[in-house]
């Protein structure tokens, strides 16, 4: 996102558009990435309930994936998963192995 100059932004730090936090990708804060093992996952959706960043994508009652643009890598999902289907992998390791 190109940062704007002082003449272009609303005064007083006001945010004039509702819900624009979506434009701010917080995923690049992440050090550890949650990686889900589809085989192990029972679709209990506990991770979906606990994720503080609404980053667990659910469709038709099933986990479809993780929104890495916003997932901050807090590890709550991995801690809460009753069947240990989510592993926290260091981003650098993940990238070394060719992930993105």
């Amino acid at each position, binding site marked *: 996102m190109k940062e*704007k100059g*002082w003449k272009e*932004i*609303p005064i007083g*730090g006001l*945010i004039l558009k*509702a819900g624009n936090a979506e434009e701010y990708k917080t995923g690049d804060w992440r050090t550890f990435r949650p990686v889900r093992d589809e085989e192990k996952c029972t679709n209990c959706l506990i991770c979906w309930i606990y994720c503080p960043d609404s980053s667990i994508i659910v469709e038709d009652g099933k986990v479809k994936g993780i929104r890495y643009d916003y997932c901050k890598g807090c590890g709550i999902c991995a801690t809460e998963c009753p069947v240990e289907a989510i592993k926290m992998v260091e981003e650098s390791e993940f990238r070394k192995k060719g992930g993105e």
Partner: protein
Amino acid sequence: MGRIVGLTGDETAAEVMRQINPDVLAAYPITPQTETVQRFSEFVADGKVSTEMVRVESEQSAMSACIGAAAAGARAMTATSANGLALMWEIVYIAASCRLPIAMVVVNRALSGPINIHCDHSDSMGARDSGWIQIYSENCQEIYDNLIQAVRIGENREVLLPVMVTFDGFIISHCTERLELLEDKKVRDFVGEYKNSYPLLNVDNPITYGPLDLFDYYFEHKRQQIEAMEKVPQVIQRVGEEFEKLSGRTYSLMEEYKTEDADFILVAAGSTAGTVKTAIEELREEGIKAGLLKIRVFRPFPVAKICQVLKKAKAVAVLDRSASFGAQGGPIFLEVRSALFGEERKLPVINYIYGLGGRDISIEQIKGVYRNLQKIADTGKVKKLVDCIGLRE
């Protein structure tokens, strides 16, 4: 011609707030501001205003309530003194940075400690970098006139900054003076209606006030505040001219008293300006060309105008009713001296700290300052750059 009345400073502030009839007034009582809020609460109880009065448990909450109200879209006012202002501190800055044009009465009182309830300017001077416009009043009439204008100045679209209107505790706040009031309707028409362009209560377009602002945008928002302050002098001038049409009384960034031909000029703010004027009258009878430059607006500091007036003088003395510990002198002195630094001719500017904790200053003492300026002009020597008046050694 308006109605002539006798009111104390505090009563004047309450009376003008009644006429302005703000949407919200949130305040906590503190000496010597107490009568302002007490009197205003009577107006509320008697149904003389439609103001929502918020009886908070501290000044921190008073300013917070004002911020909430102003953000929601209401015209909000408050009043405080010294330690009350200190307790608001964090929120005072937030009001300015949220660009909410709250009007606040500050009845100047010495800031502790040791605890003292009498006048000096340490409270409001401490807030000089908070981003508020500061207007100092000499007497009750000025309290009245300044508060009416303050609403218009702060709410101006190009400004949108909170405004402090100050006056001297006890000396003015508890002293009955003659003043002229305008009709209620005239005041209300003059201040008009407060229209916040971004009201928090607009559910069709929800917005956010006060979000986290880090290294990526905080600096830009501060730059906007600097810009807003730079717009203030011309707005004060315009509002002053409009107010003159209404009241017949002239207001500008500062007041000049016999400065035109003055060899020796004193710079002062607040009630002492009145004492200086009397001293000037007496000195002029002796043939001494004395003059006064009264600071009305301290923030923003009207550098260019002040240089224009002072540069013709032979010597200048700045009276500060507060100390800036560890600095080269009092806050007004620092501004004045720095303003004059750009002038080609170096003229002697000295500083006197006076009246701390409510200590009286007499006409004789002020005459002594002028006599010292005469000596400096004659000898070309400044013996003491910063001195005190009325202090026991």
